[in-house]
Every structure is written in structure tokens, then in C-alpha cells.
């Protein structure tokens, strides 16, 4: 991990890894979604709406995983002052927010035919909405610190503090009464029938690879902008 904190080494790796992650992620996600849409049979209770699972769950996983990645990168920035850590955290923020929004929207669409309502203010839904607002606040903070030349430690501290919400989201359906179902997949155990589980795992893999490609692309863009600005400043000083 420490070895890849060097921007030159990172760029060398990211140049071939970015298209690979984009290509493989897109391919696997398309196959998994087609599998879920055309092949999987309707569920005994939820009927055809069970197909929303293959979009909703990967989006939820990436929304929460995205913030966990921001927290780890923020910790690395604060403790080891890795030059790439804040860039990694900023690279995760926008796709993390996008997948959190996708999760909330698809969840609301799924809730209407199964629960009879678009939204309930229960622990799971509310804590996930809080996650979306945390992403918006992080993006605004990181943007402001870059624009105004302020310390990048402020968004890093915010990234760490915001991580408190991730276990709250995870345990919310256990701690409080909710219309949302309890966890169906835990380590080594699944309550989901294999006919739904395999396309779900494929969708999670595909979307995760694509998420990795998006994060690398955003990190490369941020690095290129920093390098361009540094070169322009050097040229202005020489002139």
C-alpha cells in the first residue's frame, strides 16, 4: 500500500488498470443485469419487482463501501501524510454519492409496490439519506479546500467522523423496527435462494470493478490538474 503512495508509481499502474476495470466491470455488470432482468424467475412474495435487487443492492454496497474507502484514505492522509491519500478520497466522493443516490431512488421505487409507500422515516432509510448528505458536504468541503488553498486535513477529519454513520446504516435494521428486511447476506451465510444469489454476486462484482475504474479515472484527472497547475506556476516564475 505504501509503495503505491508514490504518484509516479501509481500513474504507471493506473494507466493500464483503468481501462481494464472499466471494460471488465461494464461487461460483467451488463451480463448480471441481463441475467436478473430476463432469466431470473419472479419471487414468490415480491413477484417481478425482485429484479430491482440487482441494481439496488450493488448501489447500496458501493455507497457504504465508498464512505469506508474515504475514511481509510483520510486516516492514511492524517497519519502517514501520503500524497495520494487525499486524492483517493476525493476520487471516491462523486461516484460514492452517485451510487448512494441510485440506491435511495431504486429503493423508493421498490418500496411502492412492496410496502405500499415510497418512503418511511425509519432507521435504515434515514441513515442512508444522511449518508448522501455527508457525501454532498464532503464534496463541498474538498472543493473549497482545493479552491481556497485551505488545509486538506479538514475534509479528512470530516471523512473520518462521517464513518460513524456506516455501522449505523448496517445495524439499523437490527436495532430499530423497520419495514426494510434484516441483512440477507452475512459472512459465510446467505438467506437468499441461489437462483437470485448468483446474479446478485455477479452484479456486485461488475459494479465494484466499474466503481474502481471510475475512482482511478477521477484520481488521474485530479493528478493531471495538479501537475498542469504546478507546471504553469513554474513557467510563470521562470518568465
Amino acid at each position, binding site marked *: 500500500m505504501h509503495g503505491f503512495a508514490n504518484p509516479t508509481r501509481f500513474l504507471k499502474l493506473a494507466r493500464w488498470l483503468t481501462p481494464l476495470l472499466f471494460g471488465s466491470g461494464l461487461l460483467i455488470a451488463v451480463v448480471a443485469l441481463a441475467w436478473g432482468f430476463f432469466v431470473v424467475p419472479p419471487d414468490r412474495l415480491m*413477484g417481478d419487482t425482485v429484479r430491482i435487487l440487482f441494481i439496488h443492492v450493488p448501489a447500496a454496497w458501493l455507497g457504504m463501501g465508498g464512505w469506508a474507502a474515504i475514511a481509510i484514505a483520510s486516516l492514511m492522509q492524517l497519519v502517514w501524510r501520503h500524497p495520494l491519500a487525499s486524492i483517493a478520497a476525493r476520487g471516491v466522493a462523486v461516484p460514492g454519492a*452517485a451510487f448512494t443516490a441510485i440506491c435511495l431512488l431504486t429503493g423508493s421505487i421498490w418500496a411502492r409496490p412492496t410496502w405500499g409507500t415510497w418512503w418511511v422515516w425509519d432507521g435504515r432509510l434515514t441513515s442512508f439519506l444522511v449518508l448522501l448528505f455527508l457525501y454532498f458536504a464532503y464534496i463541498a468541503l474538498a472543493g473549497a479546500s482545493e479552491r481556497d488553498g485551505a488545509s486538506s486535513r479538514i475534509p479528512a477529519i470530516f471523512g473520518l467522523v462521517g464513518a460513524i454513520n456506516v455501522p449505523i446504516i448496517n445495524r439499523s435494521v437490527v436495532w430499530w423496527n423497520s419495514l426494510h428486511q434484516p441483512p440477507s447476506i452475512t459472512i459465510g451465510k446467505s438467506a437468499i435462494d441461489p437462483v437470485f444469489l448468483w446474479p446478485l454476486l455477479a452484479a456486485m462484482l461488475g459494479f465494484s470493478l466499474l466503481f474502481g475504474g471510475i475512482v482511478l479515472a*477521477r484520481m488521474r484527472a485530479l493528478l493531471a490538474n495538479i501537475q498542469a497547475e504546478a507546471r504553469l506556476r513554474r513557467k510563470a516564475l521562470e518568465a
Partner: protein
Amino acid sequence: MREALDQWTFVLAAYAIGVVGTLAVAGWSWLAMRRAEARRDRIKRR
């Protein structure tokens, strides 16, 4: 009386949001990367 809901309308709406949202953030990120790296290389050559 319960209203009849066409489940496929909800499935299609969820897939449309998921696919369009994912492609939008992926395409935007890819284009931003290409544009930023092209600008950096242009400045380097100057």
C-alpha cells in the same frame, strides 16, 4: 379497493435510473480524465 400496480413499470424505472446514472458518472469521469491529461501534456510540450 386496492389499486392494481404493474410491477414491470417499477422494474423498468429502477433499471433506467441505475443504468443511466452509472453510465453518466462513468462517462463523465472518463472524459474528465482524458481532458485533464491532454491539457497537462499540452502544457508540458509548450
